[in-house]
């Protein structure tokens, strides 16, 4: 039988090894974005807004024009780029600390203004880069280095559901939550990311995809255990699916 590669490496993805920990799904998320940019033929007009987190070195892997934004400010920087160059395709790639904590104002207003940009949001329920502190998406009961007794609803509130929140805003044209923990979900994720770019191309409004992802290192789990946690703990609280879709067929 001839081997068939079902998940080929996009050309826009650099040929260098990534610095991510074993089992980290940032790499998968990068690949999905890269694939979408190629499929939609957007590579040469894309401008990426990097954020501050483990994905800070995204420019080493995703070979498109990239600017580094201060922690949490990527949607504001994206607004600036897009307003200055409306014919470019502008997207941010942000973690949950970056987007849902320090950058909450920027993401909400960017979406609410209906900026024609796409946001790829990686939710791994912790601050990865700084060593596993609590994030706004940390699950109730989950132990981190700054909630050593576990996140407590009364003290720290419940994990923010960003995809739903963004979907509720007038300027949003597409909002979905996906996971990359199995092939089925991976395929859906691919489609969601494509949609989040298509609404930008069609000038329909703001596009948003939340990707549930592992952080085995800070979860203190093996990659396999971490992947299981996505299914067993995260998806029940963070349901997958499209929360808004203004693309042609759904209008």
């Amino acid at each position: 039988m001839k081997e068939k590669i079902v998940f080929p490496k996009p050309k826009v993805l650099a040929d260098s090894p990534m610095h991510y920990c074993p089992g980290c799904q940032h790499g998968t998320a990068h690949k999905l974005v890269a694939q979408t940019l190629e499929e939609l033929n957007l590579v040469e007009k894309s401008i990426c807004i990097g954020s501050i987190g483990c994905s800070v070195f995204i420019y080493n892997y995703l070979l498109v024009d990239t600017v580094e934004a201060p922690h949490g400010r990527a949607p504001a920087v994206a607004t600036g780029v897009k307003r200055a160059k409306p014919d470019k395709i502008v997207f941010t790639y942000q973690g949950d600390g970056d987007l849902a904590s320090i950058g909450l104002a920027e993401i909400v207003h960017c979406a609410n203004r209906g900026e024609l940009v796409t946001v790829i949001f990686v939710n791994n329920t912790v601050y990865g880069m700084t060593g596993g502190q609590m994030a706004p998406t940390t699950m109730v009961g989950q132990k981190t280095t700054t909630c050593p007794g576990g996140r407590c609803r009364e003290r720290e509130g419940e994990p923010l559901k960003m995809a739903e929140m963004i979907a509720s805003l007038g300027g949003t044209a597409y909002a979905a939550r996906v996971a990359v923990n199995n092939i089925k979900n991976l395929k859906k994720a691919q489609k969601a990311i494509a949609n989040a770019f298509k609404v930008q191309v069609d000038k329909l409004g703001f596009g948003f995809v939340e990707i549930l992802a592992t952080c085995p290192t800070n979860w203190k789990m093996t990659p396999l255990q971490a992947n299981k946690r996505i299914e067993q703990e995260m998806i029940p609280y963070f349901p997958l699916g499209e929360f808004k879709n203004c693309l042609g067929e759904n209008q």
Partner: protein
Amino acid sequence: MTKRMFVKGNEAVCWGALAAQCKCYFGYPITPQNDIPEFMSKELPKRGGVFVQAESEIAAANMLLGAVASGVRAMTSSSSPGISLKQEAISYMAGSELPGVIVNMNRGGPGLGDIGPSQGDYFQATKGGGHGDYRLLVLAPGTVQEAYDLTIEAFNLAFKYRNPVMILGDAILGQMKEPITPKDPVIDDSEVHNWCLDGAQNRPSRIIKSLYLEDGALAAHNLKLAKKYEQMAQEEVRFEEFLTNDAELIVVAYGSIGRIVKTTIRKLRQAGHKVGLLRPISLFPFPKEILLSLAKAGKKFLTIEHNLGQMVEDVQLAICKFATTDFYGHLPGNLPTPNDFEQPILNSLEK
């Protein structure tokens, strides 16, 4: 003797804060000071205190503003990029005369820089940092014991002057471990009841603010602040002198760099070179008088910093009547060792 503890600089700051009866901590993760929020999240609640991981440094600093307005001892900490975000609230605290304690474990910059040690935030710390005409009281520990002692001091001074106080360390101080001897300081906050907000019961209501629109009001307010800074200059100057008496050359260096230079100086002394060290501990108020008197005595000067030249301007200003200072800047991105400073010191000595 009390039993010594073996702790990181970051932890020493926390132990100092606990000893000073800090009741609230507000923070946001950033390397290289994460030990502070992590420690406080564990230890403060046990002691009836409050730990909040804020959504940002902007929020953390404003939580601090709120807590200290109620008269409670409180603290926030961060490292360079996060300290930039705290500047708004720091300016408001200075303007509103509020005693917040802010810890900066300085890392390399500008922008995201790196996570290694640096003294790139000297200007930001000592010249105000945020908008408006104000100063922080800035203390720069060189040892872990000092990090502990000066944190206790920071709370006392913040309340004495009703002014924000900053502890300026770096990634070296934060990460290194040394023994500290704990203390049991006496805390006197009896004054607090004269200004804090705790509900206008049996007294007229109070306002804590920084807005002064009436004719002449802001000028008067600024002059009042200036008087405090003058009093600080009279009473709060701190420095360490090391082998300065017979020295031909005085090296001026603060914080971690100050103590690293000390080893260089010991070595050069063994080879017969007459060099000494002046290590400013309070960066504001700056130890001008001692520098002036050393300059008067005919010494040569070399300022060494872990940046491309910031404190050197204050040194030069202090000694300008009698001397000039050379400068040597260690670049961020690599750990300074005593060897790095040998040749620069010899060069200045031979000039």
